[in-house]
């Protein structure tokens, strides 16, 4: 199970979190779960880095937090994207695609 996991390049976690909460407000655990599921279990977010990242993003004003009720009706802290976060996500996503495309082209050289 551990062998198939990928290490996240520096800074990618922020992008993944922003994208995940862009769809709908999520709490921390659900964000990690969503990333794991969507990436077909390839990307496993280290819990130890998830919460610092969430607080870092909140400090930068890209996401904001509020307390709400979870699916099983427990009190949970939900994070949602702010307008600044949306801009950041768009810029980061474009950067990432460009970078990935460029790296891909180089690797596809024959």
């Amino acid at each position, binding site marked *: 199970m551990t062998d198939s996991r990928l290490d996240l390049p520096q800074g990618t976690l922020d992008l993944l979190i922003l994208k995940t909460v862009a769809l709908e407000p999520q709490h921390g*655990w*659900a964000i990690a779960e969503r990333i794991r599921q969507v990436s077909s279990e390839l990307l496993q977010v280290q*819990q130890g880095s998830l919460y610092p990242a969430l607080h870092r993003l909140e400090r930068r004003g890209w996401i904001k937090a509020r307390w709400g009720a979870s699916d099983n009706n427990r009190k949970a802290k939900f994070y949602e994207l702010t307008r600044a976060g949306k801009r950041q996500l768009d810029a980061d996503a474009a950067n990432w695609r460009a970078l990935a495309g460029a790296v891909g082209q180089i690797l596809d050289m024959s």
Partner: protein
Amino acid sequence: MLSDLWYRFRALVFGSRMDRELDQELQFHLEQEIEKLRRAGVPQADAERRARLSLGGVAQVAEHVRDARGLGAFDRLTQDARYALRVLRRTPAFTLAVVLTLGVGIGATTTMFAVIDGLIFRALPYPNADRLVQIGATFGPVQVDSPAVRRYLGTVLSSISTIDFDAIRSRSQALEHVAGARGVALTATLAGEPRGISGAAVSASFFDLLGAHPIHGAGFTAAHDRLGAEPVAVLSYGLWQEHFGSDPQAVGRSITLDQIPHVVIGVLPRSFRGPDALELGEAQVFIPIGRVLRTETDRDNTSVPVLARLSAGRDVPSALTELDGVAASLAKEHPGSSAKFWVESLSKKTIGDSRSLWLLFGAVCVLLVIACANVANLFMVRATERTREIAVRVAMGAGRGRVARQLLTESAVFGLAGGALGLLLAWGGVQVFAALAPTGLARVDNVALDLRVFAFALALSLIASVFFGLAPARDAARSDIANGLRDAAGSLTAGKPRVHLRRALVVGQTTLALVLLVCGGLLVNSLARLARVELGFDPSNVAYLDVPLPPRTYPAAAPEKRTAFFSELLSRVQATAGVTSAALITGRPLGGGNFVTSIAAEGRLPQPGEQPLRVPFHVVSSRYFETLAIPVIEGRDFDNADTAQAPGTAIVSRAFAGRLWPGERSVVGKRFWMGRVAADAPLTTVVGVVEDIRHYRLEEDSQPMLYRAIAQLPQRQSSMVVRHQNQPAEMLQTLRRTTWQVDGTVPLERYGTMDGAVRAALGEPLLGAVLFGTFSAIAVGFACVGLYGTLAWLVRARRREMGIRLALGATAPDLVRMIIRQGLRLAAIGIALGVVAAAFASSLLSPLLYGVGAGDVPTFVAVAALMVIVAALACYLPARRAGRVDPAEILRDS
């Protein structure tokens, strides 16, 4: 950016709530994880374990989140500070020792900073103060060594003539503002009573020059500043508050000065204070100088003290060069006149000789260094005791940097506690200084604890805590865990390199303490000599009262009114019970001014180009010498024969006789020119010779002096001196009442006892000796504590060695001697270095010394001997403990 600030703000203010929320959040996460695992069929216990494992420890995550908040550093600081406070409480004796030592060091330094700040840094509270200069006249030869250094070999006066004043105003380029400013004693009628107040007659440009903007009304204009103008006045804030009840409508009201109503046209701000260099610091009311100046025809007759501002880019030498040219052309325009000008920066003039203050400041800085060395010593002892604690913390995973930072935080907490105590002590110190300060020190009310002083104390505490905290912190950062855990209680090897550092600290402390003690000793020695100085007169049981007659009622044109007043006053006072004798003098000893006159012995007119001798002179009544018990060497006192109509007679001092008629056995009957030295001028005859006295300063050697009879030169301002057998306070009261019986309009403000005047003259040396003595005593105390502490620590660290020595046959007295020898060796090195350093330091002191040389051998020897004795005492106590070591116990312990 804003969100960042908001986040940090919330974190700072609601830190604990955010922590709680974080805990909840992480708890929720954990539960979700467990739930998920359980649904996948994992048993509850296993699910909990795996969930915890995947989260990686709630505490660590929380710590990381806190770091991400950007508040980690702050959190750590408060955590460290809280820890430090716990340590502080846990070891009260150590805390007390450190805080007291630091408090005294910081307190002394802060006090002296407050003094220097008030007396020097804030001495000239005017814009562009560095460009303000004072101008005066000089007569006689001037020696110019360089553009900046001139020696005035002739007479130097602090005022110039009105002719020169006008000329400088209109001709100088180097000076952009030129104002006359003369202190005047005025009689103000306040609430119907005459009261003498200090005032200043100033030019219209005076307030602009000093950047003073009246808070109500305005300053003078050129229209006010001329003869015959309507009389107007500008009030100081104090006078306005006191006598106009801070009435904003005071402008336009009237104040009676010298019996003339003056219209108030302005009120100065509270912060304004006239320049002390021109003796205007106490001025309470300002009047235009143009109204009171006589137009002089003689350009050598000086009457206007001048204040000016250098134009931008000009300096004192260039102004001097320009004024030399002005003086040269004025001398041509006014043949026979000879006045030249001097220019001096006002800051130099005001602050004057600040040497003693700076030396005192230096002394307290040295004291602080000694105190810090002591505290560093204490900290090092404790660091060795805490080696184990620190090793444990490092082993438990605390970073070395973190441990070092925590130790530094600890020393900062100690430093701040010491600083707080220091501020408290400085508050007291400033009161003591104000109480001890000589009365002449006008700016002493500038000395106060304000924000600047507070900031200084804060900075000092932090700098000091870095100084004494650095060595232990560095040690901690480097320490070897294994060793630290093994050498629990500081065995033989523990902290070996520190032994050298500690010895160096002790030697350094002794050196510095000796330097301070030598300086203190020299000053005390000098003070003792000054206090025993042969005054030449007997000040005990003599009262004085300055009697300034108002010029309006006693004009120069009617000298007989003055004569009548003073002879009536004298006869009444002499008739008073308990009065032995009473007399008058212009410019009483140790407190009054003096007249200066040119003189030449009969038949010896100065050669062309040669300047006549100028000597101070005083106008006295008969029985003056009897009243002050000044011995009459030959001839007689003034008597009824010396009337205004009789030929001029004089009594001269021994130095005067020796100077004018060297080698003559008797000078009574000799004649000399006085004032106008010319063949056709009238001559004055010597009728008596009296002993030299210390008339102006205690330190001064006798100089030629001349006395004239008041009956021949009636005076408006005079001091009455009275020898009596009454209570001093009662006598002064009686004197004032008697004076007012003769004329109720005379303002009587200055009076006291001659003894008091002598004490006041001793004020400044006394202040220096007391402060220096106190500081050096504290320094010696600190050095001894340092010596004691280091030896005590060495004895403890070497207990095992001592035990072995005893077991091998050494006796207890051997060990005591060994320890004392070691301690004294350190002290001896310190004393030897100290003597060399003190020889340099004391040369800085030499201008302040009277009767002792800076290298006074007895003082050096006495101080060194004293130091040896106290060092021996400091060594004896720990040494005795070494002698009590029980070898069996020691060997058993190890």
